[in-house]
Every structure is written in structure tokens, then in C-alpha cells.
């Protein structure tokens, strides 16, 4: 990979990888540092085994790994809630369904953020990074059984949140 190619690669994927990392780290400045570090390492090692199209995921994975290292060493506590965008344009009048949908999103993402730290990390790695339980276990230095338990716990809490919403809307 030449520098020109790398520059284009960087321009294309940088912001997206930052946004992904920020889901875990919840500090945009730190996220940027971690992501930049990943890109630099990628440039330095220039892995040749990659298939076409695998490079962005590889860099993203490196950045996520950085994020997990950072979280482990910093032992950060829960910070302010992330601003999850609902992805709908606010200009036109939302239908009742859209309101419901946005509410659901809001409630679920709130529930997600309120999961205990370890449980949340495990769930997010599974949900957003599509890591297998084995990979998550390796990453976080825990057993696969623990990972599965955390997933089970997260799903239970999120399902309850869904249930609460449904009940609320039925009156």
C-alpha cells in the first residue's frame, strides 16, 4: 500500500471507525486517539494477507482492541449518556408509529447504557462488532461461560425493557 492509497483509505473510514469505537469509549477525543493509533500501526505493519475489502474491518478491529485495552487500564466509571441519533429527519411531522419507534429506540438504548459495565461491554462487542463469544472471552480475558452469562443477562434486561414499553402503549 502506498501512502496515497493509505491516505484515501484513511479519509474513507476514519470517522466511521471513530464513531464505532466511541460507542464503547464514550469520549470522542480519546476515541480519535485510539483510532489514529490503529491506523498508524496498520501502516507500519502493512499486513499482506488481507483479502480485498478486509482492510477496513481489520483496522476497526485493531481500534476496538485499543479501546478495550484503554477501558481496562483506565477502569472508567459510567459517564454521561451517549447521544444516540434516531436517524429520522425531525422536520416532517412524525407518525405515531415513528414516535413509537423512536421511543423504543430511546428506551432500549437507555436500557443498554444502564447495563453494568462488564455486561455492557460484552453485549456491545457481540451486537456491534459481531465478535464470537470465544473472541470476546479472549479479548476480555474471561471464560466463554462468563461471556454467555453476560449475554443472557443483557438480553433479559433488554427484553424486560421491551415488555415495559409494550405494556405502556397498550395502556
Amino acid at each position, binding site marked *: 500500500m502506498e501512502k496515497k492509497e493509505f491516505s484515501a483509505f484513511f479519509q474513507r473510514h*476514519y470517522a466511521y471507525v471513530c464513531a464505532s469505537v466511541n460507542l464503547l469509549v464514550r469520549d470522542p477525543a480519546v476515541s480519535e486517539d485510539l483510532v489514529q493509533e490503529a491506523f498508524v500501526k496498520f501502516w507500519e505493519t502493512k499486513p499482506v494477507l488481507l483479502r480485498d*475489502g478486509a482492510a477496513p474491518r481489520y483496522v476497526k478491529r485493531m481500534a476496538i*482492541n485499543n479501546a478495550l485495552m484503554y477501558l481496562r487500564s483506565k477502569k472508567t466509571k459510567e459517564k454521561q449518556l451517549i447521544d444516540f441519533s434516531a436517524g429520522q429527519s425531525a422536520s416532517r411531522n412524525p407518525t405515531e408509529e415513528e414516535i413509537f419507534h423512536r421511543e423504543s429506540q430511546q428506551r432500549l438504548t437507555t436500557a443498554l447504557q444502564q447495563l453494568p459495565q462488564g455486561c455492557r461491554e460484552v453485549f456491545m462487542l457481540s451486537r456491534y462488532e459481531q465478535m464470537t463469544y470465544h473472541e470476546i472471552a479472549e479479548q476480555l480475558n474471561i471464560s466463554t461461560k462468563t461471556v454467555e452469562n453476560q449475554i443472557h443477562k443483557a438480553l433479559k434486561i433488554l427484553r424486560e425493557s421491551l415488555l415495559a414499553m409494550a405494556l405502556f402503549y397498550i395502556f
Partner: protein
Amino acid sequence: MNEEQVWELMVKMHHHTISMPEAEKLNDWIQQHAANRQLAESMSKILRNTDVVPETQKYNTEKAWIQVEKRITPDLKTKYLTPQVFRWAAAAILTIGFIGIAHWQMNSAPRAIELTSVSTQARELRKIVLPDGTQVWMNAHSSISYPTDFDADSLRVVRFTGEAFFEVTHNPKKPFVVKSEDYHTRVLGTSFNVRLTENEASVMVLSGKVRFSYNEDGMPKSSVDIEKGYQAVANKNHQLVKSGLVNMNTLAWRTGILEFKNETIAHVIKDLSQHYHVSIQSQIDEPQEYLFTGTIEQVSVETALETICYSLHLRWKKTPHGYLISNR
């Protein structure tokens, strides 16, 4: 399957990285109980409602690139001090990264692959060479499609209908697979003839070894291994039959050679008419008396008839429908 296993598959499905067998497994599980279906639906809701639009707008890529470029350009005045936490992390990241690659290669979403397609019309024979050097001689009414390069996959896959003779470049690390809708022929490096039409599915092996299988929904249901000199044919019920008697003359369309060793005239006529696509009738008393030995190579049908009739003291003539061989 327990709940966590189901969740893993649901995530894969959501991200479109699920494989066929996994999707089948998931579907089977969902169909088993209403409770399963409900669980899957709740997981689906969770996935849908946690879809986030990445907030990329808050990151200034240009500014970031300036920082990064400084670090990767070798003539730095000041050495960048890597924070302590990353020094030991670097080795770990690389190891995990490399281990992860093989896994992603299995899981990554299918990317658009460029395919080349070649078809032959009636009476058209065509030879093509595939990206790995494999040679394919296509008979009439045949169609093949293959990717512009075979590097992307762990198998070399081509889709094919009709009849063709393959001479496959040897590559034990990447088996070559010829696929029609229901039948797959898998080889390492070999030469074989395959016939995959609506009514017929057969493979004949000239050299090497192939595995011929009948597939349903992409999964092999039955298969047979064939070696040089053998042929496998699928009957109407998709049952695979392996036969040892291989009439090499069925490859005459490709080799241009018809070889006969003490064959009855009936047999000779059959091979001739098949090869030349003409109707050859016979009016011969006691045809079993006439045995022909000889090689017909790259000649016209009339020259072939002349050769055969001359050696057997028979007569041939052209008719409105084709030809006629007689002994009077």
C-alpha cells in the same frame, strides 16, 4: 440450541454475514416451537432498536490525517512517544488481529464478484482458458460462468450447463468445482467430461479423480468418486450410478477421434451418428457379423462412411434424411 447460540446467529443474520447452513439451522429452530419464534422476534426487536446511525460528523478527518501523516512519515524531527499502555498492547493487537483474519474470511459479507459468461450456440464448439489455466472445451448448447479471478475463495467454482471437457490445472489447495443447479463435480486436477443438461447429468473421467454429487439447496445429498476410465450418471431420481464401461468415443466431439476395436456395425453407426449429428440408417442382414476395427480421425462423415464400408464390404449412400448403410 441455547439462547446465547441463537443470539449469535440472529446477530449474524442482522449483519448479513450468516452462512447458508447457519441460516437453515436458525430457521429449523424457529419452526420448532411458537416460544422459539417469540424469542427470535424479541431478539429481532432488540437488534432493530439498537441500530445506531454512526455520528461521523463530529470527527474532523482532515485534521486527523495531518496528525497521522506526521507519524507515518519517516523524517520526523521528534520521535512520537507512544503512551505506555500501547507499547505492550501493540504485540497483543497484532496477534489477535492475525488470528482474527481467517475467521473474518469465513464471515465477511459476500462482495460483488465479477463474473465472465461464455455460451455456445448449436453446432458451435469453443475452447476457453480460465483464470487458473484450466482449459475448457465446450460443446454446442453449453454455457459457463466463472469469476475473473479465483483468488477470492477457497474453492475454484464455475457454473455450467451443457457439455464440456475440462482439463483442470492441478491445485490441491483449491479444489475445482463445476456446478449446475443440482449437481456438483469436484476435482483437484484432472481431465474429465461433464454433461449437465435438463435430462442428463453425467461425468466421465479421463485422468485423475472427481467427486460427483447430487445437491439439494446447496447441500450434497449423495456423491460418488470416479476415477480414470469410469463414468457416473444420474438417473431421473437423482440416483448416482457409477459405471466402468466408458466409451471414449463419446468424447469424439472434443478429441475428433473415433476409435473402434471389434465393434459391431450397430455400435459404430450409433457413435457416428451421434458425433456427426446425422441420421444413419442401416439395412444389413445379420449385422452382428460385421465387426469394425479402426480409427476415424478428424474427417468428414462421408469419408468416415467410406472408410468403414470399404473395410467391411458394405455400401453407403446419401438419403433425404441422412445416410444409409446396406450390404446389397
